[in-house]
């Protein structure tokens, strides 16, 4: 199959065209994922654009995004496939008066027609280019992880009644994790690993400029630098990139073109979500009285 991307640089340029500023590491891993036909496991603190990366890659490559949101208690029926048993019941009832034998009937009700494809199977069966996003994979139990393994390594799903469904074309697969638990070695071994950290101030400034229309260069610069300083404090929850963007938008709406200590302290509640964090940041940023 023809590779999707020319080079890592092309990935980067393509992502930039859809307003996602990737660093070299991210672009390189996406490029390799395509060439090696391997899933990408993206880890990092909350709000650094993990899900956004997958969405942007989908937009860039013109693929349909199929998303599997993980949660505790996710099972085969929700992730892989399910038999549409109501429809099967109807079928059995309709056949009751006909003289069909059991064998015929069972062949009939376990056919594609009665199969409900859930995200993983849908991604495997799709004819058009798709991107499979398995979001917050750390939320499922370790045992459920095993469900994913067959899909991730061989791009196929085994259905006892039907046989093995193999991928028409290998989809791009992204898994994201907030690291609330250690993923199993088996899962990690099958993936390429990408850690998305908070961006450097330069990159964050560029992100603000790209995502917040109407922001001035000076303001974006200030925002990025103040956020960097705040992230260096010992906080419960350092501000994420999306919170930085929210803050920049807020400042813009309030008509503040130059952030001083007072206006920064006044709007900190956009950036930080814990009272103790806000108090601490305000103390650090505020000039000492007198």
């Amino acid at each position, binding site marked *: 199959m023809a590779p999707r991307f020319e080079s890592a640089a092309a990935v980067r340029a393509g992502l930039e065209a859809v307003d996602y500023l990737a660093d070299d590491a991210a672009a*390189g891993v996406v490029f*390799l994922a395509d060439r*090696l036909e391997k899933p990408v*496991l993206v880890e990092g603190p909350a709000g650094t654009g993990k899900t956004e990366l997958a969405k942007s890659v989908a937009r860039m490559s013109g693929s349909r995004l199929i998303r599997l949101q993980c949660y505790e208690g996710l099972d085969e029926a929700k992730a892989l496939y399910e038999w549409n048993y109501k429809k099967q019941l109807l079928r059995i009832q309709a056949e009751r008066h006909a003289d069909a034998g059991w064998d015929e009937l069972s062949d009939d009700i376990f056919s594609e027609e009665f199969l409900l494809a859930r995200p993983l199977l849908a991604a495997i069966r799709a004819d058009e280019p798709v991107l499979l996003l398995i979001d917050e994979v750390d939320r499922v139990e370790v045992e459920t992880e095993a469900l994913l393994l067959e899909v991730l390594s061989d791009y196929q799903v085994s259905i006892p009644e039907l046989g093995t469904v193999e991928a028409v074309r290998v989809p791009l697969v992204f898994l994201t994790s907030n690291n*609330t638990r250690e993923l199993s*070695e088996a899962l990690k071994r099958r993936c390429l690993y990408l850690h998305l950290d908070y961006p450097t101030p330069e990159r964050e400034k560029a992100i603000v400029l790209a995502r917040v229309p109407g922001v001035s260069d000076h303001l974006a610069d200030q925002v990025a630098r103040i956020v*960097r*300083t705040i992230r260096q404090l010992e906080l419960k929850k350092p501000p994420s990139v999306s919170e930085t963007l929210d803050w920049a938008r807020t400042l813009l709406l309030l008509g503040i073109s130059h952030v001083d200590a007072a206006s920064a302290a006044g709007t900190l509640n956009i950036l930080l979500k814990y009272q103790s964090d806000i108090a601490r940041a305000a103390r650090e940023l505020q000039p000492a009285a007198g």
Partner: protein
Amino acid sequence: MLDVLAGFVGELRAAGLPVSLSENLDALEAMRHVALDDREAFREGLAATLVKRRDHRPAFDTAFEVYFAVRRPGPGGDPLTPGELADLLTEALLSGDEDRLRELARRAVARLSGIEPGRPMSASYHVFRTLRALDADGALERLLGPASPSLDDRLAGDELRARMEALRAGVEDEVRRRLVADRGPEAMARALRRPLPEDVDFLHATREEVAAMRRAMEPLARRMAVRLARKRRHHRRGPLDFRSTVRHSLSYGGVPAEPRFRHPRPSKPEIMVIADISGSVAAFARFTLQFVHAISGQFSKVRSFVFIDGIDEVTSLFEGSDDLGEALQRVNTEADVVWAEGHSDYGHALSAFWERWGREVTPKTSVVLLGDARNNYHSAQAWVVEELRKRARHLYWLNPEPRSYWDTGDSIVSTYGAHCDGVYECRNLRQLERFVQEIG
């Protein structure tokens, strides 16, 4: 190329990274697709296939720098005088230009590091020597000027500090490069090998390692809390929930095909931590207290006591503040733990505990004792531990010393241990995590 990569993977494994065969093959496959002359792309390609954990990345980077060192010619031009170097430093810090910083690092190392072929000094010695001769800290201080409280100055200061870090990294790179050229990659990699944060010994951690452990602590505590909560939710099934079963039987035409069960109310254990905070084991006690309080939501109650030869309760210090670091500071300054001479006296501390709080230990309480049981030859008073064991649900002892040191010198851990449900060796975060998981 294959040989170099094999050596590199061998080094990663020696440093403790779990690199499997299939990952090794992936790395080889990845190498076919990245341009080998692009060093960063090459590095990221290897990292994506070989390193699957964030905290293993520094170890990877060190090994990478050693095995794939850039062979550059030495800096051109005449050696600079210290005065010229100082000017260059100020200039580079102010401009923030990366190339300039790197160039400066190379020249400074060439002139100041004192690297000579065959001289067996550690890399950190050369780095230290270069930076001191450069008077980097002094230059930074001069640029920062008097501590002024305005926001702009603060931001500018942070920027300068970040550049200083970049310079330090540049100097480290350069020193490493020169040493590799002198000694060869295998020897160098061995010398630079550092334990991973979860394997660092509590009692012998350097300042940087303590910082790394503190960073590792927070996600660890979060993971632990999630795991404990899940364990409680999933590992027991309550009695049959009749109403719910009937309700669900409706969709099967009245056949109760899917029995439903009531969720049991999870009972959370109550925990008492009694920690020795005398000098020798203070770091260990700090980590354990911090860890237990970080996951305090998983226990119905956490009470902490600290002792040296006297004992004091410090629970309120942790409850009052959100900030564990600050609470630990206050434990050090405010707790009243010295009774006679300020050397560990387990016997006296334990009997004082028994007198003041012994009645509050109930069959719901798990008691965790922390310390090396080095009693300075005071009387052991082991009966307290025996009594505690009778009253409490569980009684554990965590010892930060390696097992082979137990019961040597003035350590009397077995005297106490005989009455405990378990005595655990707890030298690093990995062992601490395992212990908490076991009792949770």
